[in-house]
């Protein structure tokens, strides 16, 4: 059951009707819990046991952490939580990746590795709900929050259906307090929730799903196409992944808001960023902040404790620490996205880009030009373009079937290959233009759903009618599963 389906609309309407007859917080939360598990069962019935196990272990660990006084004991309980979550994630997601790499190494030494593969089905959303649950135990360990007192609320926090399959990875400190009181959305909140859901549906059905076919075609055999077509494919995927994932996030946030729960934005016009650091502040915000808080900062702290000198090979120690921590974080971030070397390389590529940007900021090679009028006028535009180019190259690596394929793709663009088919897509070009215009003409930090729902009635009616018209007339007939479900 995906958000952009009749099935989900029926499910959600039933839930709203059910909720309207609930008279207490307890019945409200039990109903939501039941609905969340039913939603997950529609994807994968056996995996329900997994989410239940993760939730119960972390709930128990949370309490144990609160009771434990000795640092060693606390560390042990934290290790239980991290071990359970990463163990399950590792088993389901990375076993075949490790086996395949071991097989490759074994073949080098002449071993027969035929049949070195296990039939493991990746439970949908596992990367998201394990990270969500882990953030709770980490926060309790750090004593930044109290353990949850209700097993029902904790189960609901982990399985809350709007955020279950592909985030946003909402922290326990954000959602659990909301689950502890009875919430009902006001008419204004329902309206802004619907607008956010509608905007998500436009991104997903009208843009992402429509360009997907031609993008898949181009990425399947990059050697067949000329440079212009490949460039178009790269631009198409850049638009597709943004609209697919931010569309999902918008729908998830919209659904939660209709139910009365507030969730922070997960995307804020990421392609308007003027540098790669800003890009990561605007792209998949819940994941990047998760990595910042639970991996980057702790690893930077760990590196700083080991590095006592002020400079290493003539470079300031803070810079060395930053680069080491960011590379570690983004290599893991890449691996989180998928069990493939393309994701690891993509992560390292972004780590290098962020490290380079940091060095650039410290070095400031163009500071002499800073007062120049032409520089002032054009620097932001150039910075945006360079950032976008870096991101697009990253998406080619991310989307390619293999590293060889990514190399061939980028090489053909780089050498302006003229041989091959030229496929001009009637979907990709308009989609790219539309997304570019939105990014160019609107302020980066605007909150459209809230803004629109506060306009005069006539403007709202026309805006909503236009949104409905776009979805029903230009939306793909059969909505494809969201890209991020596979992670």
């Amino acid at each position, binding site marked *: 059951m995906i958000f952009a*389906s*009749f*099935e989900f609309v029926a499910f959600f309407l039933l839930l709203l009707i059910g909720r309207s007859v609930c008279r207490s917080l307890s019945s409200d939360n039990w109903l939501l819990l039941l609905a969340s598990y039913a939603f997950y069962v529609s994807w994968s019935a056996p995996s329900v046991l997994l989410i239940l196990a993760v939730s119960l272990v972390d709930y128990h660990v949370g309490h144990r952490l609160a009771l434990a006084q000795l640092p060693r004991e606390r560390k042990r309980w934290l290790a239980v939580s991290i071990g359970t979550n990463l163990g399950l994630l590792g088993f389901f997601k990375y076993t075949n990746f490790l086996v395949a790499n071991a097989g490759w190494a074994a073949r080098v030494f002449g071993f027969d590795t035929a049949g070195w593969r296990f039939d493991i089905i990746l439970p949908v959303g596992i990367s998201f709900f394990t990270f969500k649950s882990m953030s709770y135990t980490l926060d309790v360990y750090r004593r930044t929050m109290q353990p949850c007192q209700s097993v029902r609320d904790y189960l609901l926090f982990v399985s809350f259906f709007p955020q279950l399959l592909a985030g946003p990875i909402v922290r326990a400190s954000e959602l659990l307090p909301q689950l502890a009181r009875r919430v009902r959305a*006001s*008419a*204004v909140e*329902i*309206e802004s929730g*619907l607008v956010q859901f509608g905007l998500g549906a436009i991104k997903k059905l009208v843009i992402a799903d*429509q360009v997907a*076919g*031609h993008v*898949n*075609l181009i990425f399947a055999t990059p050697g067949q196409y000329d440079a212009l077509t490949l460039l178009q494919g790269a631009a198409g995927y850049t638009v597709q992944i943004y609209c697919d994932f931010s569309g999902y996030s918008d729908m998830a946030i919209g659904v939660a808001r209709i139910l009365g729960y507030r969730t922070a934005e997960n995307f804020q016009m990421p392609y308007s960023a003027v540098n790669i650091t800003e890009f990561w502040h605007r792209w998949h915000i819940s994941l990047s902040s998760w990595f910042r808080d639970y991996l980057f900062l702790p690893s930077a702290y760990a590196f700083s404790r080991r590095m006592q000198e002020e400079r290493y090979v003539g470079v300031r120690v803070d810079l060395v620490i930053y680069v080491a921590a960011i590379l570690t974080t983004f290599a893991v971030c890449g691996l989180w996205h998928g069990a493939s070397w393309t994701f690891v390389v993509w992560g390292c590529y972004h780590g290098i880009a962020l490290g380079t940007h940091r060095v650039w900021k410290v070095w400031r090679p163009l500071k002499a030009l800073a007062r120049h009028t032409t520089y002032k006028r054009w620097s932001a535009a150039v910075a945006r373009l360079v950032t976008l180019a870096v991101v697009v190259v990253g998406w080619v690596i991310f989307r390619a079937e293999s590293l060889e394929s990514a190399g061939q793709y980028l090489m053909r663009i780089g050498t302006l290959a003229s041989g091959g*088919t*030229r*496929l*001009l*897509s*009637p*979907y990709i070009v308009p989609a790219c233009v539309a997304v570019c215009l939105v990014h160019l003409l609107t302020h980066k930090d605007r909150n459209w759903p809230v803004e629109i729902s506060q306009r005069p*009635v006539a403007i*709202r*009616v*026309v*805006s*909503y*009618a*236009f949104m*409905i*018209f776009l979805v*029903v*007339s*230009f*939306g*793909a*007939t*059969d909505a494809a599963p969201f890209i991020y479900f596979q992670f």
Partner: protein
Amino acid sequence: MSARVRFIATVGAAVLLAALCTHLAAAALDIQTKAATGHKRFGSEHGAAQALISGSSLTYDGVNWREVAGVLGLSIESWPVPGSSPAEWEQLQRRSPHAGTTFVGVSLYDLNEAWLCDFRANIVPFRQTLGDLWESRSDRAFAKRLSTWYFLAWVRMVFPTAGRSDRVIFGLRDKASSLLGGVGADADAGAKLRLAADYTSDAKISEWPEDRLLRRLDSMRGLQGKPGFAGPKHLALLRLLQRARRQGAVVVVVLPVSPPYVGGLLSQPDMEQFEASLADAKRAVPEATWVRLDHVARLKSADYFSDLVHLNMQGRSIATAEFLKSLAGRATRP
């Protein structure tokens, strides 16, 4: 007025306005929104028709039925529905209870379960669909997709463009092209459904640029999903043939599709499943006459197709001649 009432009024007004816009768009872009089953006659117009054609646009493009009616001395009728399949033909067959001969045109295209007729929900009762899904043990995803079609039919009463984005996009492109002088209009018209009772074309897909072929294949891949030949359509075909046999003679024409369609969208197991489906139909109605135009060597060329699945004028001439020759050589000639 309370905030809740104001909200409901705002959303209601937006829905009404959007519905009006979609109706206007459908009219402006000539999008067929009703399952118009126009009656078509070939041969003598007088008296009750002696024969019935059950087929999709491939059947009407593939064989010159006027010529067939003339040569065989039959009055033939039909109710062509764009993009139809045995599931819809079975329902329309009931309109010709006295047809002594039934010509059934099938192909890899219209027996493919994954390809759903736009008007299926308007023609085939939901109970029939549910029963067929159950009997054919269709997988959950397909059953869901097919059932959604019925819900979509309700939505289309308010928003006629719902689920027809391809036709909206191609319609807009056609309009834009004709406004700009007509160049390039209809470049991908194959994605549109057409009522092809009298349609003929000289176009050859062998002359298509490669990118156009790729785009069309991709578009069909997107529309059709994973091919299959053993679901509700197959059951409907069996029932259609059995009913036709009770009414009189049955002639099944297996029409060819273009080589790029076969190569680009179907695998060897798909072809085997298609043949198994035909073999099953043969066993169910052994008295039927089978004409395998898809086995005619000359028609296995992209020169004889106006798009990925429809024969062009030259292809139709060859197919009609082969069809008549094949009937002439059989004892069961209708």
